[in-house]
């Protein structure tokens, strides 16, 4: 069995948040290489970890550098790639460069430090390719996907830190059906935990001694882009990048939460497309008015869902919609500056 078949058998999915079947991505690179034998190939390990509330990649690098590098080397060998880049945020680079360099040895693996002002969008795969190529750091139009036209027009494999870690384990026959969860927020034992990948959210909280004894809700998959669930909705898996952030209900004003999310996306929008560049600006503007037009808020969020170019634009509505539908509309108190019933109606 070659490595792709092993990966397929193990059922690996990408751990960067999108959960794309890893075997399919590797096959796409292989197919595109076979189609055009003049092309080189490249590998990028995404160690940007820019999503607030997600800390697992730093943990994995700290504790399992060798396996991460081993996974990258497996890719280098399999595709006979030109080189691999570890696209890493500056904090992690400072902390872990020595141990990573040791593990790299003489392999053609280079660090590319995530540029200082690239922000949240600097961790998106198209932005990463543009950063490495010296272009403006913003997403690319897809198709073509990086597997077909990545770095300098060549087939490029972009995988997350945890994904490469898993590939190393699969290759050594040591892979277990586990994944790394980040638990943080209003909890006693925040941290990164390696547990079975089929645990429900409430089970994860209980096993890590983090199940709250106060009124709470959670956000899963990231503090900005993650879905918000109330305490009765925790029977599912921890989706996306596997982070669970606990929010104590009494601590947060609804207006501030929503404003926080929208301000974040307003600051982080790359500006390329109308629904996001203009949409985030107008959303922030609408929220400032004394009489918030919730119908307009929903219209702007719908427009983002329908026509934004990249993952950032398409995810903006997720935390807000889920918060209103799953938490607010069930509670309805603590609403300065908002008309609870009207607002919730608009979101249905």
């Amino acid at each position, binding site marked *: 069995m070659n490595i792709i078949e092993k990966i397929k058998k193990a059922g690996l999915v990408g751990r960067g948040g999108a959960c794309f079947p890893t075997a399919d991505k590797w096959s796409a690179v292989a197919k595109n290489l076979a189609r055009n034998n003049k092309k080189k190939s490249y590998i990028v390990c995404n160690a940007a970890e820019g999503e607030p509330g997600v800390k697992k990649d730093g943990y994995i690098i700290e504790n399992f550098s060798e396996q991460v590098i081993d996974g990258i080397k497996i890719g280098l060998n399999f595709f006979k790639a030109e080189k691999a880049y570890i696209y890493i945020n500056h904090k992690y680079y400072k902390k872990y460069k020595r141990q990573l360099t040791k593990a790299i040895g003489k392999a053609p693996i280079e660090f590319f430090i995530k540029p200082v002002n690239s*922000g949240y969008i600097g961790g998106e795969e198209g932005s990463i390719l543009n950063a490495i190529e010296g272009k*403006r750091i913003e997403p690319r*139009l897809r198709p073509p996907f990086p597997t077909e036209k990545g770095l300098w027009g060549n087939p490029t494999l972009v995988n997350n830190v945890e994904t490469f870690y898993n590939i190393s384990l699969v290759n050594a026959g040591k892979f277990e059906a586990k994944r790394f969860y980040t638990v943080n927020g209003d909890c006693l034992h925040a941290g990164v935990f390696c547990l079975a990948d089929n645990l429900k959210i409430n089970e994860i909280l209980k096993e890590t001694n983090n199940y709250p004894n106060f009124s709470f809700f959670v956000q899963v998959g990231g503090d900005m882009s993650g879905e918000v669930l109330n305490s009765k909705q925790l029977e599912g898996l921890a989706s996306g990048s596997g982070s669970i952030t606990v929010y104590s209900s009494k601590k947060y004003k609804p207006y501030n939460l929503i404003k926080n999310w929208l301000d974040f996306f*307003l*600051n*982080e*929008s*790359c*500006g*390329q*497309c*109308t*629904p996001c*560049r*203009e*949409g*985030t*600006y*107008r959303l922030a*503007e609408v929220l400032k008015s004394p009489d918030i037009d919730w119908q*307009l808020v929903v*219209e*702007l969020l*719908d*427009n983002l869902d*329908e*026509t*934004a*170019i990249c993952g950032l634009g398409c995810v903006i509505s997720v935390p807000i919609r889920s918060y209103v539908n799953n938490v607010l509309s069930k509670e309805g108190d603590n609403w300065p500056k908002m008309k609870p019933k009207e607002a919730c109606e608009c979101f249905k």
Partner: protein
Amino acid sequence: MSARGGFASGGKKIKIKINGKEINCLPDQTILEVALKNGIYIPSLCYHSDFKPKANCRVCVVEVKGEKKLSMSCKRKVEPEMDIRTDTPRVKKTRNLNIELIFAEHIGKCPTCVWNVNCKLLKLAEKYKIETNRFSDRKKNRKTYKFANAVEIDGTQCIDCRNCIDACSVMQNINYLELKGKGSEQEIVPVKNKKIDCIYCGQCAVHCPVGAAQEQTQWEIVEKELTNKKKIVVAQFAPSIRVSIGEEFNLGYGEIATGQVIAGLKKLGFTHIFDVNFGADITTLVEAEELLERLKNKGVMPMMTSCCPAWVKYVEFYHPELIPNLTTSRSPHIHSAGIIKTYWADKMKIKPSDIVIVSVMPCTAKKFEATRSELKIKGNNPVDYVITTREFAYLLKKNQIDFANLKDVKADNPLGQYSGAAAIYGGSGGVMESALRSAHAMACGSKKTGVCRDKIDFKEVRGLSDVKEAVVDVGDKKLRVAVVNGIGNIEPIIKNLNKYDYIEVMACPGGCIGGGGQPIPTTDEIRAKRIAALYKLDKSKKLRKAHDNPAVKESLSWLKKQGKLEHKVLHTKYKKRK
């Protein structure tokens, strides 16, 4: 050009549906391309066939049956059995909101904006009945960047489509504009690199879907001068105007509207109307003479044309070592203006300083050229103001002149006569062909046999290819000539100058008919139609060569008797610029 959208490759046709209409089309095209070819309207703002699709305006959205996500028709390629709808409620909702959001980057100026007679965005807002008062004008405090007196980028109007950057960087390879900042803060600015400068070609302006990148207008001061009783205000118009202005009045592409142009200018209040084609014949003669002289006396070679002011700016800033290669001949409208303010003024007994000359040009760089101090004749600039084709159209519409129904008027004599060689100046290769017709005839003298049989057509230098090369007969010599179509294609020529004897360079793709001041849109298809009209005009003329133009002969022989004035009127010099 490699950046421009590709044409459909040969192959088997496929069947698709757009709004229920069955269409057979070649694959490897986008939905928008197929729709346009089949007369189906899909709105778009950032799309331009000269560039690869950027798909950032998100206005050309369509729904493909069976797919969850909407598609951008400018980018999405057609597939067999695709069922496309451009008018579903889902499409309308998101398209209209995106138009509304774009409009709000921009509103507040419509009542006084020059483009309200021909603005793509305003037309979309009207067509889809967009709400224009839900959002405030978010760019009202943005800066305007001005480049000489020719072009400007008005940040208050910019809709972030990036066409100007595609034009300046990808197409023209000048790289003068960049996008600074992120998100809603982003702004188109000139680069802060002292080694890069604007050449005023205006390709940014002719690709802008709104009124952000545009010419610096002079129609206001021209209108004012027209009311000045103390001046004789005359107009002259370029070769390109007559085959392009009709587009602004729904007369189709390549419509030859010379008589109406003159009538329209007369209605605007200009007392005399002259044809720059007359000036072009002078330019041809002066240039042909200089070419033959350099060949005979082993002067600086290759000789290069200089009637494109953006190309001259390019040489002066980027390659000053090539200044000696530029012909010392002035450009057509400067030639004709010089003759007007000397020969014509003398004939009419008018003081040259009482004459105001307005050139109607397809060009933004000519606004800069007109101010060059080296061009002064006895203390006066030959041309006082330059307005673009678009400004001319605006003036006509503003004054409610029914251009389409104007009765033809002839230009004023004697400076209204021109040859076919002048007519083709507006297209890439036109100056070259014109000069070769005359140079060859002049070199042959009275010989009429062998290679010296009458040669009119030099077809190898025509067309829209990036660079056209040929070896042509001029008298008993074989000249290696090159025609560069668009400043973006200049580098390989500059690196191989010793391969050529005579080079024509036009900064704008297509030549002047694709100029920065031309009607919008300007695409390859439209460039070809405008050029075809010029060659049609050429063929229709009895006079095909510049040196056969009697008016030119008369004015030049008068000039010969004026001593030093002759050189002042016909020649110029250039200077290195930082």
